[in-house]
């Protein structure tokens, strides 16, 4: 009898601890400073692609609020001249050094951040590039492995909308929209 009571007490104790842990996972802020943001543009003159591996992303799992911030100068190109033009002529990175997305994961309550799984999500918010903010909506997925959420999303951005002007000489040979891909493994917990 006493042995059974001890066992029940232990089970209750473990359940309570597990409950506290799950609540913590459900309502925590997870982040990374090693997020990967790539952009790709296909055009007759030349394809342009660049990668930035130092994006900062933070997600509040309880509300689905998300922010991704990236340094424009952190984009690495295969060709140095492309990188110089990108920074000096197109994005003017000295004047506007960062691009920031702030938004929310739609229907966040359906995501169980404490269990492994994959969820197709829509993220809505505001994207600021070149000091211009515009509302955007992106399709993506959240993959949870060992309670670590990984956010993957892809969307297109029109250069004209963000006041990014292409010189007339090459205007017809460079794509007016670029595809942006985000891949952030949110493996740090904000204490």
């Amino acid at each position, binding site marked *: 009898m006493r042995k059974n009571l001890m066992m029940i007490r232990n089970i209750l104790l473990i359940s309570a601890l597990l409950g506290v842990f799950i609540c913590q996972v459900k309502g925590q802020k997870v*982040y990374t*400073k*090693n997020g*990967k943001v790539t952009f790709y543009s296909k055009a007759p003159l030349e394809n342009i692609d660049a990668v930035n*591996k*130092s994006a*900062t992303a*933070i997600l509040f799992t309880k509300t689905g609020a998300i922010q991704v*911030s990236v*340094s424009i*100068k*952190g984009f*690495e*190109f*295969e*060709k*140095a*001249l492309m*990188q110089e033009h990108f920074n000096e002529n197109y994005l003017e990175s*000295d004047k506007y*050094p*960062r691009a920031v997305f702030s938004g929310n994961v739609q229907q966040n309550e359906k995501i169980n951040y404490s269990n492994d799984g994959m969820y197709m999500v829509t993220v809505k918010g505001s994207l600021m590039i070149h000091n211009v903010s515009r509302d955007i909506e992106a399709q993506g997925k959240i993959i949870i492995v060992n309670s670590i959420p990984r956010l993957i999303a892809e969307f297109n951005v029109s250069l004209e909308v963000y006041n990014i002007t292409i010189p007339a000489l090459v205007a017809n040979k460079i794509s007016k929209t670029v595809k942006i891909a985000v891949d952030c*493994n949110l*493996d740090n917990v*904000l204490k």
Partner: protein
Amino acid sequence: MKLKIIGNKKDSMVTAIPGKREKVFMMIAGFALLIFFIALYVLNEYNRKPVNVSYVKPDFEVTDSALIAEFENSEKLAMKKYSGKIILIKGIIRKIAKNGSTYTINLGNPLSGSSVHCLIDSTQDIGNWSEGRYIACKGVFVDFNRDELLGSDIILNRCILNYK
């Protein structure tokens, strides 16, 4: 081509004076050569790769704490000083993170919110480096990211570990 006799007939000197056709030919050849060199320069410039940090002498040599202090004291001045420069930074490894095939090493005092974020070049093997070890690392300064919530970072790209 016309040949012109200079001086008297006994000790005469024969020199070649180009005619109109030869002049045009020389001009075209010179112009073509100029175009060739311009094209070569443009092609070379177009295909130019970003500088290989391994072979470049650093513009600055500094410790992690000194660099962080400079940015925290005056971000504007520090940005002007280090923008696009190659820095050889020395400090203690606070954290090593792997993202796909890329390693990131954070240098700085673990008790401080700020750190130096070194993105290691994909050609580099981080070998036996571990947290708490003192290293020297050379990379291109990219940006200073001031963040009150997550801690500020000084970002260096294409970093090469200095084994010396």
